[in-house]
C-alpha cells in the first residue's frame, strides 16, 4: 500500500487544485464578459431618464430614443399583494435598449402587458394577474431589456393613459463612463438610471464569490504544491540506493531528475483530467446563478479556462517536482551507494537522547523525538496541518458570517398576517402579541427609484442590523441601505425627501434587497399604512382565531448563502483531505525510514498499540503547532475576505457578521489541526504496526 500512496496523494492534490482553478477561472471569465456582450448586442441605454419634456440631444449624448410614456403604477395581485410597476409604452425591438420578446406576443390592445424577465426565467405562473386602477391586466408575454429600463411594457396608448405626462428617454453616450456629466447636461430630471449601476448589480454575484473562491483557490494551490513537493522529496530521500544505481549504470543527473518529475506528472495528469471534469460539472450551476445575476443568457463553462488550467497545473507540478528532485541530481553516486549512515544530525540525536531519558512511555518518547531528526519533512507536515487548520478556521468563520448575514436579511417572524383593507383593525386585534407591520412601495427618492419601507409596531422585531449609526426612533428619522447612501451621495445625518416629507438619515442598515436602494422609516412618517403584519411567538391558527388572514411564515430565500456555504464546505473537505494526505505522506515516509527501528522495538516487545501511539506521537507536535499557526491564519483570511465579499456585493456587513470568532468557535476550530494530524497518521501508523517485523529486520 505504501508504494501507491505517493501517486494517490499527487493525483488527489492535482484533482483538487484543478477543480478549484476551473471553478474560479470560469467565474472570473464570466464576470467581465457576458454583460458587456449583451449590452453591445442589444445596444443598451447608457442612461435611462424619467421626467417631462426631456431633450432629445445634449452635450455628451450620441443618440437617443423616446420619449416613451412611462407609468408608475401600483399593481395589485389577486392575493392582494401590491407590486410597484414601471410600465413603458414601447414597441418590440427599438434602436436603443432593443427589447427582445422571450415568449408570448407583444401587447396589441389596452389592458395587455409584457413583463420584464431574465432569459431562462420563463413566463409568470398561469393565472397570475394584476389589477391597475381597478382594471384587470392581461399578461401576454415576457420580454428582456438588457438595461432593465422598465418592469413591464404596454402599448404606447395604454401606457400614456396611466403615465400622467411622465416620459422616459433612453440615451447612448459618446463617453459611456461620463454618465454624471451627461445627466447634468440634460437639466432637471425626475429619475435617472445609469448603465453603470446595472453593470455593477450584474457583477455583484461574482463579487461575492470571487474573494472566497480566490482564498480557497490560493490555499488549494499552495497546499497541493507543498504536498507534491514533499512527495517527490520523500521519493528522492527514500530512493538513494536506486539513484546511485541509476547513476552508476550511466544515467545523467538530468535524466534522474527527469525520471522523478515524470513520476509526479503521470498521477498529476490523472488528477488534472478528473479535476477538469468535476470543475466543469460544478461550474454549471454556479454559472447559471451568475448568469441570472448578469441579466444575460447563462453561459456554459468556458473551455479556454479548462485548457489554461490543464496546461498551467502540470507546469506547476513539474516545477515543484523539479525543485524537489534536484537533490537527486546532485547526490554523489558513491554517497548514494554507501550503506545508509547513522542519522548523523546532532540535533536529532540530542532530541532522541532527551526523549529517551524522559519519564514518558518509550512508545511516546520514541515518536516525540522524530520531528527533530528530519526537520524539513516535519516542517512540510506542519505546514500541511497548518494550512488545513487555516482552511477549516476560515470556512467555519465564513459559515458563521453567512449565517449572521442570513439572519440579518430575514425579517419574517413566525406568522404573516395580511392587512390590505383594515390595517388599524388588524393592529388592534394583534394588541396582545409581539408584532410589527410593514409596507414597501417603490418611490423616487433623491432622483432614484427606491424601495421605501414603512414600519409600525415593535420595529426592532424586524431584525434589521446596522452597519453604522442607529435604527430610527424619533419622528422624522429614517435609515437607508449602504448602496442607496452611496448612489445618492447621502451621509448619515443628511436628509432625503420622500413624497414631500423630509427625513433625517440616522443610520446605515444592512439590506441587500432591491440592490440596496432602500429607505426605511416609520410608516406614519411616510404617510403609509402597513399591508402586512409579522407576529412573533404565535402560530397561524392562534392568529386566525382572532379573525385574521394568517399563515405560518416560510423560509426566506437564502439561496445564495446556501450555495456559498455548500461551496465553502466542499472546498474545506477537499483542502482538509489534501492536508490529511500531506500528513499521510510524511508519516509513510517516516515509517519507511524507521522500519528497522520499529522492527527492533517490536522484537524487544513493543505492542502494535504502542507502535501506533509512537507514530501518532511523532505527529502530535505538528498537530498542535499546526493549530497554533493555522487558526490565526484562517482568522486573518476571514478578516480580509469576508468584508471583501461584502463590498463585492456592494454592501458593508453587520458587525455581528464580521466578528464571529468567539471562544466556542475558536475551541471548535482549534481541534482541526490535531484531528487532521492524528487521522493522517493513524493509517500509516497501523500499517507500521502491522508490518512483519521479520521483514524489517532481515539483513542488509
Amino acid at each position: 500500500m505504501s508504494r501507491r500512496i505517493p501517486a494517490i496523494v499527487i493525483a488527489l492534490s492535482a484533482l483538487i487544485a484543478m477543480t478549484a482553478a476551473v471553478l474560479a477561472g470560469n467565474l472570473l471569465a464570466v464576470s467581465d464578459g457576458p454583460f458587456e456582450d449583451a449590452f453591445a448586442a442589444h445596444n443598451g441605454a447608457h442612461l435611462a431618464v424619467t421626467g417631462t419634456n426631456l431633450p432629445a440631444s445634449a452635450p455628451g449624448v450620441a443618440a437617443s430614443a423616446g420619449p416613451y410614456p412611462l407609468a408608475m403604477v401600483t399593481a395589485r395581485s389577486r392575493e392582494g399583494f401590491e407590486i410597484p410597476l414601471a410600465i413603458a409604452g414601447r414597441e418590440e425591438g427599438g434602436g436603443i435598449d432593443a427589447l427582445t420578446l422571450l415568449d408570448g406576443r407583444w401587447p396589441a390592445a389596452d389592458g395587455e402587458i409584457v413583463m420584464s424577465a431574465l432569459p431562462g426565467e420563463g413566463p409568470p405562473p398561469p393565472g397570475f394577474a394584476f389589477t391597475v386602477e381597478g382594471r384587470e391586466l392581461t399578461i401576454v408575454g415576457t420580454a428582456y431589456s438588457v438595461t432593465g429600463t422598465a418592469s413591464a411594457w404596454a402599448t404606447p396608448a395604454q401606457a400614456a393613459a396611466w403615465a400622467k405626462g411622465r416620459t422616459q428617454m433612453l440615451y447612448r453616450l459618446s463617453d459611456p463612463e461620463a454618465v454624471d456629466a451627461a445627466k447634468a447636461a440634460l437639466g432637471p430630471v425626475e429619475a435617472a438610471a445609469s448603465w453603470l449601476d446595472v453593470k455593477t448589480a450584474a457583477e455583484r454575484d461574482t463579487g461575492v464569490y470571487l474573494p472566497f473562491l480566490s482564498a480557497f483557490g490560493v490555499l488549494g494551490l499552495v497546499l497541493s504544491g507543498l504536498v507534491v513537493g514533499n512527495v517527490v522529496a520523500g521519493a528522492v530521500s527514500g530512493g538513494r540506493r536506486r539513484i546511485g544505481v541509476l547513476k552508476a549504470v550511466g544515467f545523467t543527473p538530468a535524466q534522474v531528475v527527469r525520471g522523478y518529475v515524470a513520476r509526479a506528472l503521470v498521477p498529476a495528469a490523472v488528477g488534472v483530467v478528473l479535476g477538469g471534469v468535476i470543475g466543469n460539472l460544478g461550474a454549471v450551476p454556479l454559472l447559471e446563478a451568475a448568469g441570472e445575476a448578469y441579466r444575460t443568457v447563462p453561459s456554459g463553462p468556458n473551455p479556454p479556462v479548462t485548457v489554461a488550467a490543464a496546461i498551467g497545473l502540470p507546469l506547476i507540478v513539474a516545477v515543484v517536482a523539479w525543485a524537489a528532485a534536484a537533490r537527486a541530481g546532485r547526490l554523489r553516486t558513491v554517497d548514494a551507494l554507501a550503506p545508509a549512515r547513522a542519522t548523523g544530525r546532532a540535533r536529532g540525536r540530542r532530541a532522541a537522547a532527551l526523549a529517551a531519558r524522559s519519564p514518558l512511555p518509550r512508545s511516546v518518547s520514541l515518536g516525540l523525538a522524530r520531528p527533530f531528526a528530519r526537520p524539513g519533512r516535519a516542517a512540510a507536515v506542519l505546514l500541511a496541518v497548518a494550512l488545513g487548520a487555516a482552511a477549516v478556521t476560515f470556512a467555519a468563520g465564513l459559515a458563521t458570517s453567512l449565517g449572521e448575514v442570513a439572519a440579518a436579511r430575514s425579517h419574517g417572524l413566525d406568522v404573516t398576517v395580511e392587512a390590505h383593507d383594515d390595517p388599524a383593525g388588524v393592529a388592534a386585534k394583534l394588541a396582545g402579541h409581539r408584532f410589527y407591520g410593514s409596507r414597501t412601495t417603490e418611490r423616487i427618492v433623491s432622483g432614484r427609484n427606491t424601495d421605501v419601507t414603512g414600519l409600525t409596531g415593535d420595529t426592532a422585531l424586524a431584525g434589521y442590523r446596522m452597519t453604522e449609526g442607529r435604527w430610527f426612533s424619533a419622528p422624522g428619522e429614517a435609515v437607508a441601505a449602504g448602496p442607496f447612501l452611496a448612489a445618492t451621495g447621502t451621509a448619515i445625518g443628511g436628509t432625503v425627501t420622500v413624497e414631500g416629507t423630509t427625513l433625517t438619515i440616522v443610520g446605515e442598515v444592512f439590506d441587500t434587497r432591491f440592490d440596496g436602494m432602500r429607505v426605511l422609516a416609520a410608516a406614519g412618517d411616510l404617510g403609509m399604512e402597513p399591508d402586512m403584519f409579522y407576529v412573533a411567538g404565535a402560530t397561524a391558527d392562534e392568529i386566525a382565531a382572532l379573525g385574521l388572514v394568517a399563515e405560518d411564515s416560510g423560509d426566506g430565500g437564502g439561496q445564495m448563502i446556501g450555495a456559498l456555504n455548500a461551496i465553502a464546505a466542499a472546498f474545506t473537505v477537499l483542502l482538509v483531505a489534501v492536508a490529511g494526505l500531506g500528513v499521510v505522506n510524511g508519516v509513510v515516509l517516516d515509517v519507511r525510514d524507521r522500519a528497522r527501528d520499529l522492527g527492533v522495538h517490536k522484537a524487544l516487545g513493543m505492542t502494535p498499540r504502542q507502535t501506533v501511539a509512537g507514530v501518532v506521537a511523532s505527529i502530535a507536535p505538528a498537530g498542535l503547532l499546526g493549530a497554533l499557526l493555522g487558526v490565526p491564519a484562517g482568522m486573518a483570511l476571514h478578516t480580509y475576505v469576508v468584508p471583501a465579499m461584502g463590498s463585492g456585493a456592494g454592501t458593508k456587513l453587520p458587525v455581528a457578521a464580521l466578528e464571529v470568532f468567539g471562544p466556542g468557535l475558536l475551541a471548535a476550530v482549534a481541534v482541526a489541526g490535531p484531528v487532521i494530524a492524528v487521522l493522517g497518521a493513524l493509517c500509516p501508523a497501523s500499517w507500521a504496526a502491522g508490518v512483519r517485523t521479520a521483514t524489517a529486520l532481515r539483513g542488509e
Partner: protein
Amino acid sequence: MIELNHVTRAYDAGPPALNNASLSVAAGESVAVLGPSGSGKSTLLNLIAGLDRPDSGTVTVDGVRVDGMSETAAAKHRRARIGMVFQFFHLLDDLTVTENVLLPARLLGLSRKAAEERAKRLLDDLGVGRFGDTHPARLSGGQRQRVAVARALMNRPPVLLADEPTGALDSAAGAEVAGLMKDLHADGHTIVLVTHDLALAEACATRTVRLADGEVLG
C-alpha cells in the same frame, strides 16, 4: 522449554521456508541450528519469538502457545521470555549504548533506577561498561554485539535466540562472542543459536540440528 510441532511456513513465492519442521529444546539446553543460507533458520527463530506465524503446526515456549497469539500478546511474550541477538546487531543509532540496553526494561515498565543499575552491571560484565554514554556507531562490531547481548539479557528472559551472532564479525570478535554464548549457557540460559559456522556451533552448543530446504534433518 521450546516445542515446534510439524511447523510449516511458506512465503508468497517459492517453496516453504520451513516444511513440517519439529524441534524440541529442553530448559537449559543450548541448541545450534545449522544450515546453508536460505534454509529457513531465521524463519525458525522468528516463529519462536512470535515475530512470524506458522501456516500450520504449533509453537510452544515455556508452556505457552506462541502460534496464533495476537500481535500484542506476542509482543508481551517477547518482553518477558525472549532475548534476541541479530547478525547486524540492530542497535538504535540515535540512542546511547546504555539507552539501547534500557529499552526492554522501559517497555516492561521497570523502574528507571533499578533498570539503570542492571544495565550498568550487564555492560560491565560483558566488558563494554566504559562505552555506556557513547553511540553504537563508535563501537567495533564485536563491541556492538556485546551491547546487543546485554540488551537481550536486560529483562532476564529464560530463552535467548541468536541469529548468526558472529556473521558480521571478524574471527577474533567472533571467538569472543562464541565464548560469551558459552558462558550464558553455563549460567543456565536456554539458547537457540542459528549459524552456518560449524566452529561456533561446536564451541557453544550442547546439541546441533541441521536444516536444509526448510526440513529438520536431526
